[in-house]
């Protein structure tokens, strides 16, 4: 994003503050400086030379990229673009958390953000390619089990980064390079399936045919007889599934297909305004400070108020929330229904 575009965003922002109560970072720090509108103001301070990069980008670096502010903004300010512009300015000056820096270095070397070698299984006669992104294959064990139950043939691509971290840090040049290099390894003619909504978003943006797991399972379950799953669960809808991929309906549809299930949503923090768990598709856990933990606490309180058991459809949300509260993966519910 150019300086002129940032100025346009700033001038478009009326500073109405509608973004304030929906921002998880503001809600846990309770400091105006953390609000999306303030971040837009701080970007202007940097443009004007009235703030230096470290000052102007401090709260943009705390963002969990959940995009709730953009959904709420009636003026259509592209706040995430402003955040990425500030983050990119910080990167250029060597400012940023070590955990993110080392991950980006790995990506430059063609490794995953965890420093692992990507593994691409080459099998011609499979129906789909299961894309695990930066998750371990073990985290997809239930998905593989369900695929077998459903008779879905698949090969697996592991530890290949979808590029989301580079997008969230505003490193557009690196992202382009990465996508050319890494994503070219993927079989173009096969449909990709991933449980991570961040990966699904990035792969879709890169022009690949991809299905987020809830959509894929929903399609498949139509052909199967399901048993009732007598559970009362509160749904944690992942930010990236809702506000990046715009696929909240896919998750709802899958949950509605499972008989016997009593679904609860934590009003008002559900649907388009679903509250982030703090993980930011796993990437934002690499930032400094307690932000993600405090946000998780806030989210867990909202979920606990609604029901005992939580269900989610993102491996990062699952891993992060599980540290504090029992969580079911969506595929576990499907397995129960197929048993």
């Amino acid at each position, binding site marked *: 994003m150019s300086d002129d575009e940032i100025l346009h965003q700033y001038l478009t922002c009326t*500073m109405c*503050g509608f973004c304030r109560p929906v921002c998880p970072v503001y809600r846990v720090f*309770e400091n105006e*400086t953390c609000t999306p509108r303030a971040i837009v*103001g701080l970007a202007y301070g940097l443009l004007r030379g009235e*703030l230096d990069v470290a000052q102007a980008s401090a709260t943009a670096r705390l963002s969990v990229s959940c995009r709730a502010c953009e959904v709420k903004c009636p003026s259509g300010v592209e706040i995430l673009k402003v955040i990425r512009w500030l983050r990119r300015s910080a990167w250029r000056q060597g400012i940023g958390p070590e955990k993110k820096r080392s991950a980006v270095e790995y990506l430059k070397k063609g490794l995953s953000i965890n420093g692992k070698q990507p593994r691409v299984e080459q099998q011609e006669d499979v129906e789909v390619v299961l894309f695990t992104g930066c998750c371990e294959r073990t985290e997809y064990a239930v998905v593989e089990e369900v695929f077998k139950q459903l008779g879905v043939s698949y090969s697996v691509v592991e530890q290949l980064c979808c590029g989301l971290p580079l997008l969230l840090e505003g490193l557009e040049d690196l992202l382009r390079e990465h996508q050319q290099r890494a994503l070219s390894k993927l079989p173009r003619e096969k449909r990709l399936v991933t449980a991570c909504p961040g990966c699904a978003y990035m792969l879709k943006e890169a022009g690949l045919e991809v299905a987020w797991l809830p959509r894929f399972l929903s399609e498949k379950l139509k052909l199967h007889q399901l048993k009732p799953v007598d559970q009362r669960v509160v749904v944690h809808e992942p930010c990236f599934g809702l506000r990046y991929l715009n696929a909240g309906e896919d998750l709802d549809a899958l949950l509605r297909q499972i008989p016997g299930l009593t679904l609860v949503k934590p009003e008002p923090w559900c649907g388009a305004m679903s509250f982030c768990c703090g993980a930011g598709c796993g990437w934002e856990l690499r930032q400094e400070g307690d932000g993600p933990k405090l946000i998780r606490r806030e989210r867990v309180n909202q979920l606990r108020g609604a029901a005992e058991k939580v269900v989610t459809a993102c491996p990062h949300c699952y891993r992060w929330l599980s540290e504090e509260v029992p969580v079911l993966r969506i595929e576990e519910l499907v397995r129960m229904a197929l048993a």
Partner: protein
Amino acid sequence: MSLWEFTWEERLDRFVTELGHHFPDNRVLTDEASKYAYGFDASIHFAKPDVVVLAETREEVLTVVNLANRYRIPLVPRGAGTGLCGHALAWYGGCILDLTRMNKIREISVENKWVRVEPGVVYADLNRALSPHGYAFPPEPGSGDVCTIGGMVATNASGSRALKYGATREHVLALEVILPNGTRVALGSSTLKRSAGYTLTHLMVGSEGTLGVITEVVLRIAPVPTHYATAVAAFDQIEKAGRAVERLVRLRTLPAAIEIMDRTCIEAVNRAMELGLPEVAGIVIVEFDGFSTDEAERPLEEAKRICQEEGVEQFEYTTDPQERARLWAGRKAVLPSLSRAVGGKYSTSLADDMIVPVSRVAEAVKRFAEIAKRYGVTIGTYGHAGDGNLHCKVIFDVKSPEAWQQAWKACWDVYRVCVDLGGDLSGEHGIGFTKAPFLRLRKPRELELMRAIKRLLDPNNIMNPGKLGLEEIPDTFLYKLRYPVKL
């Protein structure tokens, strides 16, 4: 050594140092980013404080007020910073006292019909907490999801429901206020009626933080209607819409809300929210509420007849809660949606709020459009027509000094029209700094009396200086603009 032998910097330095003795580091903000962030509110201005304090208790507020008074540091109480006239900005620097962490609902007393809250409670959160009891604090400002009760009291905020249920002032039963000299006073009482001397709560409501810091509010609450009927009437001439409003207000069943939007606003909100409102010269939204279907829907027939007699093009209504919610979400989003109105130009919080007699609403809207044409700016007008409370957004090239001068002239004419029509400068947003220049359009005696009260309660003028025209009436609002323009 007397205080006046210290320089401003020395006094500020001592003030901040002493704050550090009472507050943890992360609640006294002096870093550049924080000062910059608190330099904005929803107005056209930018003014940085020297320090920000995040208070959590009334005792902490007391400490800050005492220190500010001792060192003569300007002190600006701040809620969510949604004010449109610069009320929550530190016009002369000094200290912003952020009260949003004081957000406890202390007591809900349904049997006595009141709620006792701290000033930082968000309006929507309060009503969510009251909802299980079937009650609400009704004024419903457009910024209700964001704004705080303290800010609402300080500006006598209201919204679409004020027509039937009254503005904030009508609901304030009691207040706890820290006066500028550090005295904690309890004003009013938690009773539904009172006749025991001056109503000093009313003096504090709308005082914009110039007389003290509000630390507790007791608000009258009202039962929430169970049934609603909401109609949208589309007119091809704004005068017809105005005449309809005039007659709707006279209905035996008072509508819960009567809103008006001109074409500029309709187009903007349709673009932003995809509402599909009819894009005509003006629409009137009229809503009835009650505790039965009959109570809410019966008056619609008469409302429709009135609108038909005034030449309505289209009259549709809904009782579906989701459709109603969508409609009101669109209405509340008019103000920021106008940012998308004109390519290359931006909307500004100018002429944001004015009030005229209900019978003059149509005339006012028409004259605002003429003013816009005269000065080459776009003005979108909307508002709570049922009580004569109108809002505008002025849209122009904010990077052009000439455009700003034209906008200033347009605003001057807008307010002159309002005063000429028997109205006033603000119905619910307050004066702050932006509207202070227009105080010279009003009779001066009232302002003189306000200044005398201010001198009595705040002789050192520490509380929110530069607002309400209390020191002097500025010659223009073209000061400390947040835009990239040199005037």
